C-alpha cells in the first residue's frame, strides 16, 4: 500500500504523463511487454500491462504510422483523447483522498482508513479499475490514471505479445479470437453495456457496488445509466467503422466483425441506422445486467440481501404527505414496501415482448410479499429470477436484427413517441428521455429532414434536457456534484404531464405537423 500512496501523489502523475509523449515517438512497432519468446502464449491468463505501455504508441500519430497507413485504421491518438478529455482518466484523481475532503469523509464514516484494504477493494475497483481480487500487483501502481485502457478493453499482456495486434492480419481476427487473448469485444452492444454497467450500475462479483452505507457516508447517488447516451457524451477516442477511411484489410475486418456496410447511405445515416438497430440490444443487456446484481445478491444473502442500495432510492427518500401521487400510483400494491429500481428494466418492459412483461411483473410483485423480497426467489435457479432471466435472454436473442435501412430510424422514433413517460419514476423517465433525445437526433440528422423540422427537433431536445436533467455535458474536471444538485431538484419537480406534452409535440413533428 505504501507503493500506492507514493504513486497517488499528483506530482508523480505529471511525470508519468510527461514521459508518454517522449516514449511514443521512438517506440513505434516495438512490443514493449517484456515476454520470453519461448513461453507458450496461453499458458497464463492475460494480465494488465498498464496505461504507460498502451500510451507509448496510442498517444500521438507519429509519421511512421501515417506512412504505413496505420492511422487509416486507428487514429493512434486514443490515449491522448482519453487523458485530455475523458473523465475516466481523472476518475481517481478527482477523488484522491489527499485532495478530496468528501473522499476522506466517506472513508472516515465507513470506519476505513486511507491506507486500508477497503479503499482499494471497494472504491478503486471502479475509480481505478482495480480487480476485485484486490491483487495489488495488477496495475495498482497506476491508480492515478483512473479508469484506463485495459479496464474496458481487457488485459493486454497477451495480445501485445509477439506484435499480434500490430499486424494488419489482426484486423481480420474475429472478436472471439481476440477475446481469447483477453481483448473485450466492445463492438458488441451486450459486452459494451456490461463493461460500462459494471461500474455505472454495479457488479457485486467485481467488487463494484456503491453500498447504501457508502451513499450515506457521502457518495453521490449514481444517476440512472443509459449506455448509448452515456457513450455519446464520452469524448470519442475511437472511430466507427463507417467513419474509418479506406484501410488495408477492411474487407476482412468487416467480415470478422459481421458488420455489413451500407455504402449507399451517408456516413451520418449509416451510424444512425446502426445505432437504431442496436438500441434494443443495449436495453436488453442493461436489464440482464441489473437482474444479475439481484441474483448475485440473493446468492449471498447474508452479505447483500436487503442492502438499501439495491432498491429504488425514491421508494424511501420522499417526504410524507397524504394523500399523495405516490400512494395513488401504487394502488393495488402493498403500500410501504421498498421496490427495486425500475429504470434498468423500464425499456425492455416497455418493449412489445409479453413474456418479458409478465416475468417482470412477477419479479416486481415479489417485493410486495415481504419487505425487501425473499432472496430464495431471486437466487440462481430461483423461480422469479430464472423466469425473468430466461425471458430477457429470449428477448435479447431476437433483438438487434439488422434492417440496413433508414426506415428503422423513423420507426424507432415513432415507437418511442407512443410510450407514455411514467409518473412518479424520475429515473425511468430520464432513461426514456435520453433515448428519445438520441432518436430525435438520429432522425433530425437525415438529409431529407427540413431545416424547420430540425430547428423544432432542437427545441424539443432542449425542453427534454431541461425537464429531465439529461444529456448535460460535464467538463473533464468538473465534479459530478455540480450535476447532482441540478438532477435532484429536477427530480423533485418532475411532472410526467409536462414531459408527455413534449413527447406529443415530437410525435406531431414526425408527422410533419409541428405545433407552434
Amino acid at each position: 500500500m505504501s507503493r500506492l500512496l507514493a504513486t497517488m501523489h499528483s506530482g508523480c502523475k505529471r511525470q508519468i504523463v510527461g514521459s508518454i509523449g517522449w516514449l511514443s515517438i521512438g517506440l513505434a512497432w516495438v512490443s514493449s511487454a517484456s515476454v520470453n519468446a519461448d513461453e507458450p502464449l496461453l499458458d497464463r491468463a492475460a494480465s494488465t500491462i498498464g496505461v504507460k505501455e498502451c500510451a507509448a504508441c496510442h498517444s500521438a500519430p507519429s509519421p511512421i504510422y501515417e506512412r504505413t497507413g496505420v492511422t487509416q485504421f486507428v487514429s493512434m491518438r486514443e490515449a491522448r483523447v482519453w487523458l485530455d478529455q475523458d473523465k475516466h482518466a481523472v476518475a481517481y484523481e478527482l477523488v484522491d483522498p489527499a485532495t478530496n475532503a468528501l473522499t476522506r469523509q466517506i472513508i472516515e464514516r465507513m470506519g476505513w482508513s486511507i491506507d486500508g484494504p477497503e479503499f482499494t477493494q471497494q472504491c478503486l475497483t471502479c475509480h481505478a479499475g482495480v480487480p476485485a481480487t484486490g491483487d495489488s500487483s495488477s496495475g495498482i501502481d497506476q491508480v492515478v490514471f483512473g479508469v484506463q485502457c485495459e479496464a474496458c478493453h481487457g488485459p493486454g499482456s497477451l495480445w501485445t505479445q509477439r506484435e499480434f495486434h500490430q499486424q494488419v492480419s489482426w484486423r481480420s481476427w474475429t472478436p472471439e479470437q481476440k477475446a481469447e487473448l483477453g481483448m473485450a469485444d466492445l463492438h458488441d452492444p451486450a459486452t459494451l453495456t456490461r463493461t460500462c454497467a459494471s461500474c455505472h450500475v454495479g457488479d457485486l462479483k467485481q467488487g463494484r457496488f456503491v453500498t447504501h452505507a457508502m451513499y450515506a457516508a457521502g457518495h453521490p447517488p449514481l444517476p440512472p445509466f443509459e449506455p448509448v447516451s452515456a457513450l455519446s457524451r464520452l469524448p470519442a477516442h475511437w472511430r466507427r467503422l463507417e467513419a474509418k477511411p479506406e484501410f488495408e484489410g477492411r474487407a476482412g475486418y468487416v467480415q470478422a466483425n459481421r458488420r455489413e456496410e451500407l455504402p449507399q447511405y451517408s456516413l451520418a445515416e449509416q451510424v444512425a441506422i446502426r445505432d437504431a438497430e442496436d438500441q434494443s440490444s443495449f436495453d436488453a443487456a442493461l436489464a440482464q445486467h441489473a437482474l444479475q446484481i439481484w441474483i448475485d445478491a440473493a446468492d449471498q444473502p447474508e452479505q447483500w440481501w436487503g442492502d438499501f442500495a439495491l432498491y429504488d432510492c425514491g421508494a424511501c427518500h420522499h417526504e410524507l404527505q397524504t394523500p399523495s401521487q405516490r400512494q395513488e400510483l401504487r394502488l393495488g400494491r402493498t403500500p410501504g414496501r421498498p421496490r427495486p429500481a425500475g429504470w434498468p428494466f423500464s425499456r425492455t418492459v416497455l418493449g412489445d415482448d409479453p413474456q418479458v412483461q409478465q416475468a417482470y411483473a412477477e419479479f416486481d410483485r415479489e417485493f410486495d410479499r415481504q419487505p425487501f423480497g425473499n432472496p430464495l426467489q431471486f437466487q440462481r435457479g430461483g423461480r422469479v429470477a430464472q423466469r425473468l432471466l430466461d425471458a430477457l435472454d429470449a428477448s435479447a436473442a431476437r433483438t438487434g436484427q439488422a434492417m440496413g435501412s433508414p426506415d428503422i430510424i423513423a420507426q424507432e422514433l415513432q415507437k418511442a413517441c407512443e410510450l407514455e413517460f411514467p409518473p412518479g419514476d424520475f429515473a425511468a423517465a430520464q432513461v426514456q428521455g435520453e433515448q428519445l433525445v438520441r432518436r430525435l437526433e438520429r432522425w433530425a440528422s437525415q438529409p431529407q429532414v427540413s431545416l424547420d423540422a430540425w430547428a423544432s427537433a432542437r427545441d424539443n431536445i432542449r425542453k427534454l434536457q431541461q425537464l429531465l436533467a439529461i444529456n448535460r455535458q460535464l467538463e473533464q474536471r468538473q465534479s459530478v456534484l455540480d450535476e447532482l444538485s441540478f438532477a435532484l431538484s429536477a427530480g423533485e419537480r418532475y411532472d410526467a404531464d409536462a414531459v408527455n406534452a413534449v413527447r406529443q409535440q415530437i410525435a406531431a413533428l414526425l408527422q410533419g405537423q409541428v405545433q407552434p
Partner: protein
Amino acid sequence: MRPSTWGQAHHSTQSTPDSGRWEDCVWRQVLFTTSVFVVCCVAEAQEPGRAPAHRPAGEVLGGVSCAAASCHGGRHPGQADPQLIAGAEYPLWLERDPHARSWQTLCSDASTAMLERLGILRGGQIVDRAGWANCLACHNPSEHLDPQTHLPPLREGVDCEACHGPAKQWIGEHFLTGWSPQQSASFVPLKDEYQRARRCATCHVGGADRDMNHDLIAAGHPALYFDMAVDHDRLPKHFRDDRLSGAGSSMERIRWWWAGLLAAADAELELLAARARKTHAVSVWPELAAYRCSDCHFALRGPDPGRAHGLKLASSTQGKPAPRGWNLAGLPMVIQTLRADPAMTAWSDRLADRYADLQHALLDSAQQPAAPEVALIAEELRELLSNLRDEGRWSIPHEAQTRSLVAGVLGDPALSGDWESASRAYVAAWSTLSRPMAEDEVEAMESLRQILQFPPGFNSSRFPRGLKSEPWSTSISSEQLREWFSRLAAAVNPVAPSSDLRDTP
C-alpha cells in the same frame, strides 16, 4: 389479577395492608403512597396460554348497557353536582371523548382510501379479513362480526368495554357492596397510572394482536406518537382522579409521564416480539415501522457541507435507520434510575445489556435484523421489566431524582440532532415543569413546539434537516435549539448541574 402485588409494600414508610378487604388495600395504597409508585403487573399477561389481560376474553354488551340513567347515563355534566364523581360517564364520553367517534373515523373518506390502498376493501367489500380485524382491534374493538358484512354488530368506537373489559360477567354485580374487581377476570382495573397507561398503549402503541405497521402508515395512517402525560391531559375526562396519589401536586404530570414510558415500553416490546416471532396476522418481518421515520423519509437534495445529502447521521449507523426509540425511551431512564441505587446494579446492568443488544440486533445484524434474536431479546427485556414491577423493585423516582434525570435529557447535546429525541425531550419538559411556567419557559416551550410540529400537509417533520433551509424555520439554528433546551433544563432542575446525569446508556 393478583391482589398480592397490590398489597405489597416496598418502602419503609409504607404501611403493610392488613385489613381483610382487598379493595381497601388498594385505596390505602393509592391514597397514602406518595413516594412509591407501585405498578401492578397483571398476572394473566405473564402466563403463557392465557389471554393477555389487556384484552380479556368475555362477552361484550355494548356501551348502551352501561348508560341507564341510574347507572352511568346520569345527569348531564352541565347540571351535575360538582362533588359528583360518578354517574354521567356515558354522556361525557359520548359527547366529548374522541374515542366515541373512532368508528366514524374508520368510515371516513380518508380511511376508506387507506383501506383500498391496503387491499382490505375492494369494490365496497371487505376482502382481507385479517387486515380488517387489525383496524377494528383499535377502531371498534367489540369483536364479533357479522359473517355476511364483516361489520361489527355494535359500532360504538372505543366504548366502555374497550377499556373496562367485557361486561357480561360483571355488569350485574360490579355495583354491589363487597364486589371486588378480582372477582372477574374480564374486569380491567384502571385506577393506577401504570394500569391505565398500559391500557391506552394497547392501541396507541400496539400489541400482539394489533399492529399499526409500516404498511398502514404508507397507506396514510398517521404514525403513532403515544405520550401518556400529554394525551391524558388532553383527554376529555368522564372520570375524576382526585383520589389518585399525587393528584393536583407537582408530581401529577410526572407520574403519568413515567407510567406512560413504562407502559409504552412494555407494549412496544410485546409488539416487537410478536412481529419478530412472525405470529402477527398482518405484519411481515422485517417491520419497517420499528425504525425512525425521518431516518429514511427525507427527499434527496443537493449536497450540503457537513451532511451527506442533507442528512446528518451518526457515523455508527452507516446508512441504516436507527431503531425507533419513541416507545422504548423509558428503558434508558429506568436503567439510569436503577443505577442510582447500588443494590440494583445487577438489574440495571442486565437491562442495559439487553437494551444495547436489542439496538444492535435491530440495526446491525448483517443486512437485515435477525428475527429470532430480536424476539428473544424483546421477550427477555419485557420479562425483566415485569419482574421489576412484580417484585416492587422498580418504583417511580422521587421528585428531585426525576427532575435531575429530565434535566440530563434536556442538556444532552445530541438533542438538536433528531426530531424524535428532541420531541421526547419536549414532552419530558412539559411533564416536569412546574406550573404556572415562567415567561421565558413559555417562550422556549412555544418556540420548540412550533419547530417540532409537522408542517401543514405533512406527516413527517422537516426537523432537523430543514433547520437552516426550510421556510418555516429559517431563523432556527441548532445553537438556538440547544439554548432553549438548556433554559428548560435549568427550569426543571434549578439545583443540580445537568451534566452529571448524562450517562444514559
